[in-house]
């Protein structure tokens, strides 16, 4: 187990180094003078020179990379060209809304997706199953922003049940915080639910046909216990995997959702940074998001041992 964790850690670090190289080269190998690219179209020459200085563009590439990686490892992601403030600070400021939205979405989508998938498998072929399949296909193919504007129109503009957009921090009260997050969570979660429900259904169908399910029935177990005590844990590994992989989908969805609902989170920060060509900020966000993704999948892999005793590392 320890050996496995170490091995996984090493591979996670390798992935991160590769991501780092990629992000690093993205800017340096783009055509033209990176400093001019960063500074923008009508920048004064002094600004371009300053940026050139800041990025150490005079040095050979490998040295530039080492210096760049070193500063990132020490927590220095550079300073925003647009606001002149440290990138890390900018990201940390925007973290609360994004974390609130992501965590709520993961909880909501996992619970709903697993429930839908289980129900569909239990009633395979019946009307409920077909209705859920149709819903999943639809939910997966409609773009996030369409869903977002539709929900805003229905629940915030036609009926004034929920706020149209914006974000309220937790310290302004749990109820307002939550009210502002309901529509964004549903919007962001819909595709994720479809993904999880599909995998859950397929995995559960396989498990429900196993001999040990008949044994459970022969004991007198109820349908609920059969599904959730006996079957779900056996079907869990693929479900957990898709929840982990779907996290990538979530990251891209967060950017759109935050824009649609005007939530001042990391997603909005990224969009603004792209609009402003604020390269240090874009780089910082990319690195942090990749790091998070790699870590989540490491945690998912390790948690397999919790649901299936036969899995040993």
């Amino acid at each position, binding site marked *: 187990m320890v050996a496995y964790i170490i091995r996984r850690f090493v591979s996670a670090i390798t992935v991160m180094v590769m991501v780092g190289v990629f992000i690093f080269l993205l800017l340096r190998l783009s055509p033209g003078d990176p400093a001019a690219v960063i500074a923008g179209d009508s920048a004064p020459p002094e600004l371009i020179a300053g940026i050139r200085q800041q990025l150490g563009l005079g040095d050979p590439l490998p040295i530039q990379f080492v210096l760049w990686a070193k500063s990132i490892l020490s927590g220095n992601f550079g300073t925003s060209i647009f606001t002149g403030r440290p990138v890390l600070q900018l990201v940390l400021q925007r973290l609360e809304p994004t974390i609130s939205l992501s965590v709520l979405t993961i909880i909501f989508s996992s619970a709903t997706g697993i429930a839908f998938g289980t129900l569909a498998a239990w009633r395979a072929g019946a009307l409920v199953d077909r209705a859920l399949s149709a819903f999943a296909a639809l939910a997966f193919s409609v773009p996030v922003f369409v869903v977002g504007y539709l929900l805003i129109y229905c629940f915030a503009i036609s009926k004034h049940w929920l706020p149209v957009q914006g974000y309220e921090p937790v310290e302004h009260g749990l109820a307002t915080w939550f009210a502002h997050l309901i529509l964004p969570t549903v919007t962001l979660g819909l595709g994720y639910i479809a993904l999880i429900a599909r995998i859950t259904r397929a995995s559960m169908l396989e498990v429900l046909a196993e001999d040990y399910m008949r*044994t459970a029935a022969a004991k007198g177990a109820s349908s609920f216990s059969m599904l959730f005590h006996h079957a779900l844990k056996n079907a869990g590994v693929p479900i957990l995997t898709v929840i982990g992989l779907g996290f990538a989908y979530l990251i891209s969805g967060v950017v759109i959702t935050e824009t649609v609902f005007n939530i001042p989170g990391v997603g909005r920060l990224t969009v603004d940074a792209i609009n402003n060509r604020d390269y240090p900020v874009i780089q910082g966000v990319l690195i942090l998001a990749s790091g998070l993704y790699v870590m989540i999948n490491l945690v998912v892999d390790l948690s397999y041992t919790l649901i299936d005793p036969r899995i040993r590392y």
Partner: protein
Amino acid sequence: MQSRNAGGDDVLLDVLDLETHFYGEDGVVPALGGISFQIRSGETLGVVGESGCGKSVTALSILRLLPKLSAKTVGGEIRFRGRDLLKLSEPEMRLIRGDRIAMIFQEPMTSLNPVHTVGDQIAEAVQIHTKASRSEAMARAQEMLRLVRIADPERRVNNYPYEMSGGMRQRVMIAMALACTPELLIADEPTTALDVTIQAQILRLILELKQRMGTAVMLITHDLGVVAETCQRAVVMYAGRIVEQATVRDLFARPTHPYTQGLMRSAPDPRRGRQRRLPEIPGIVPSLREPIAGCSFAPRCPYAISICHEKTPSLRDVGPDHAAACWRSEEVVGA
């Protein structure tokens, strides 16, 4: 007709004209074509027949555990202590499964849930049917493991199935089935999948516990030798029907259906040990898909005459507690 009160009044299970169909893509398969038999309290009934004759379907029909979408019991009665199980609601049926009628399956390797400990799985049966607390149920699980002679039960309760051998898993299945001291245990070829050396041990264990708990056993098997050694009465099945039923003593002394005779004639030489599968009888087992005119054994039967190909014989008494479904049983016995 066969007499219904043969042999006494202590009837535990009374199956009457049970009919079960499978629904496949290519039509309906009448897996059970109306079978009737009884099990009395505390007795061991053997059910024998070639592969595919409907033994497992009979067992699953009794417990109503057939695959929901593809199979259905379409006729008959299953009277358990006088109550027709086919008329019970699903919640009422759940109270019976595992508590009053329990079942052991053929495949010990796949019949236990791989992600729960064996202790949990035995305790679950206890907790479903009694008000026992979790610790009481776990104590019962340990006691059951000791009863089925698993060494070191204190440690073994916390094992997962993958940590056990096939024989041990079948012992766990027995422990689970008997944890609530059922009145009837259905054992569907409980030893077929096991190592030959372990088969006799498991069989002996079932019989010993049955004796101790006063449980009746419906023992499904391929092995006539096992029937001779362990059962009081036996039922011989062929192509979804019962072709002969009798006390074991009578069955071996006076086999009255040509199929039973065929089984016995080619029975293994006792000096060469027991045979795992029933011996081959010339001809092929009929497909249940096409409707059979007359007796389904007629195409393979040396005694067959024209009526055998035209009308299906029903079970008729040929002696006390002995019935056979054959138009020519007198000639068959006399031969």
